[in-house]
């Protein structure tokens, strides 16, 4: 996809997000009668108008503006390998986040750090061990002991 097509797609997405917000307002905001001059619905509606308008402007601008800017051609693009690495990381991160409540913060943090370091090609086992223990201890001392944060314990710890 070239930059013009990308901008047209972005313009369409922006417009539809605006439209979606506009359509959802009556269902998502129930009015209280006669309280304020500008109601709870007006500000969200204004945002939806602005988004739709910006979508239209961006779309028109993209259609009429040919690829003349040098900066525009420099769209940063992740290659396939990078993308796979990002997806793998995000999957691990999501599993970690969503599993905390079930398994417990410290157990899952330990597993997550070990797996992430292996994933990031750390080969020295003593390094993995020291960093994992170090991070766990640091977090326990600061957040549990000093700040008294109740971290999720889950099934294990």
């Amino acid at each position, binding site marked *: 996809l070239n930059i013009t097509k*990308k901008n047209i797609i972005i313009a369409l997405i922006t417009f539809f*997000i605006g439209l979606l*917000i506009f359509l959802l307002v009556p269902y*998502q*905001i129930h*009015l*209280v009668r006669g*309280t*304020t*001059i*500008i*109601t*709870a619905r007006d*500000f*969200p509606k204004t*945002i939806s108008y*602005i*988004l739709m308008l*910006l*979508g239209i*402007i*961006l779309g028109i*601008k993209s259609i009429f503006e040919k690829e003349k800017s040098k*900066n525009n051609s420099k*769209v*940063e*693009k*992740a290659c396939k390998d*990078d993308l796979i*690495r*990002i997806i793998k*990381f*995000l999957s691990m*991160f*999501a599993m970690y*986040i*969503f599993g*905390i*409540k079930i398994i417990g*913060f410290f157990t899952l*943090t330990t597993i*997550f*750090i070990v797996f*992430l*370091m292996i994933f*990031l*090609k*750390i080969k020295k086992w003593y*390094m993995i061990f020291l*960093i994992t223990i170090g*991070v766990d201890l640091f*977090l326990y001392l*600061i*957040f549990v002991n*000093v*700040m*008294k*944060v109740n*971290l*999720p314990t889950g099934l294990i710890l």
Partner: protein
Amino acid sequence: MLENIISVIPNLFGLINLLTITFGVIIGITIGALPGLTATMAVALMLPFTFGMNSTTGLLLLTGLYFGGIYGGSITAILINTPGTPAATATALDGYPLAKEGKALKALQMALYSSFIGGIISFFALLFFAPQLAKLALRFGPAEYFMLAIFGLTVIVSVSQASLIKGLISGSMGLFVAIIGLDPLEGVPRFCFENINFYGGIQLIPALIGLFAVSQIILSIEQFSNHKAEIDTSLKTEGLSLNEFFNSIKHIIKSSLIGVVIGAIPGTGGAIAAFIAYNQAKRSSKNPDQFGKGSLEGIAAAESANNGTTGATFIPLLTLGVPGDIITAVILGAFMMQGLTPGPMLFVNHGDIVYGLIIGILLVNIAMLIIGSLTIKIYAKVIDIPSNILIPIISVLCVIGAFSIRNSIFDVYCIIIFGIIGYILPKFGFPLAPILIAIILGPMAESNLRRALIISKGSYTIFLESPFAIFFFILIILSLLLPVINKRREKN
């Protein structure tokens, strides 16, 4: 003012505060010196640590991180031509050529000393101008606050240099995020989808941890490679001479003042100040040809200007409640977390905290000079820390940081969503700063607009009745027009 200053000094010089400042500066310089990690990320990551702290101590920690991070950014700029923070971009222009010539130590020392002077001049500007501005701001009503919030939102125009429309779209998205939750005046739920987690709204801290820290982790994963950069970081070379330093003193003072003026204008920040000062120094230098090839004057100008903004960015934050740049927007989050609302009433109700912070800024600058001087060679080694060690540690800190705000796992889910948004949007030319600015200023604009209209019984003329409101109206117009005029001028 003097009474307040005298009353905060004994508390400020307590062991805990001094240790906190030292810790903040050390961590700030470390994070700033790590390629890919920014001062904003440092402040965002450490924000949850301030939760259980005394307000002044917490704010001093973040200030130490902020100032240390800005200085730390110059270390990577000089040694590996990778500015640790955007504000250090101009520093790299001359710093890296000097490092290649084997004069890295000279460049690093010049960066440190000029950063210190810039920071001190900025501190005095904050100390003398902020209270006066706060006194004026005490007369503001909802109409003035609405105009002020709109003026703050116009900052989006200046931070969206690449594409104004995309900047405005980002800002509108931020406004939408800000309206989720209970309506501030009527208390009705808005876009909560009958999910109890949304009733409290999207919290600012998880949003900014996601936007500025998790997105950086994803970016590091994308750019990940496990081979080390080959640079000599031993710094076994000659240091900066007094003569070399005094040759640049004129530029340092002038650039610091440029930094102060620019820093006090919301939406500008260190990077713009550094480039303006750099150009100014080049024009007035006896050796303009040397600029870009390894000029100590160039480093002095860029660093004093970007640190000159540091204290000045607190002026609009403390007096008007409008953040001057992204980092002060994050620090504003810290005020909110402590139950404090930045603005003129802060000077009246919490003078101890405000003056503690202002005087603390002086201490932070002194700590930065001492720590920077003593550890300059150690910090040069920091850049060797591989990213595969940092990524797991920072990932866990993001999670625990978001959770500890209100012990909510929902906030942790938010960081991954905002992290993905923060990673994807810049790829398509969308700036992230407008989202944050809109999340902060959106509710202020909406609630004051509605309050003002209740007072005026629906008449919109209230927004142009008082001199302050008219003044902000003029500022809004100027703020919208100036970037457009500048762009046209650049094109011509």
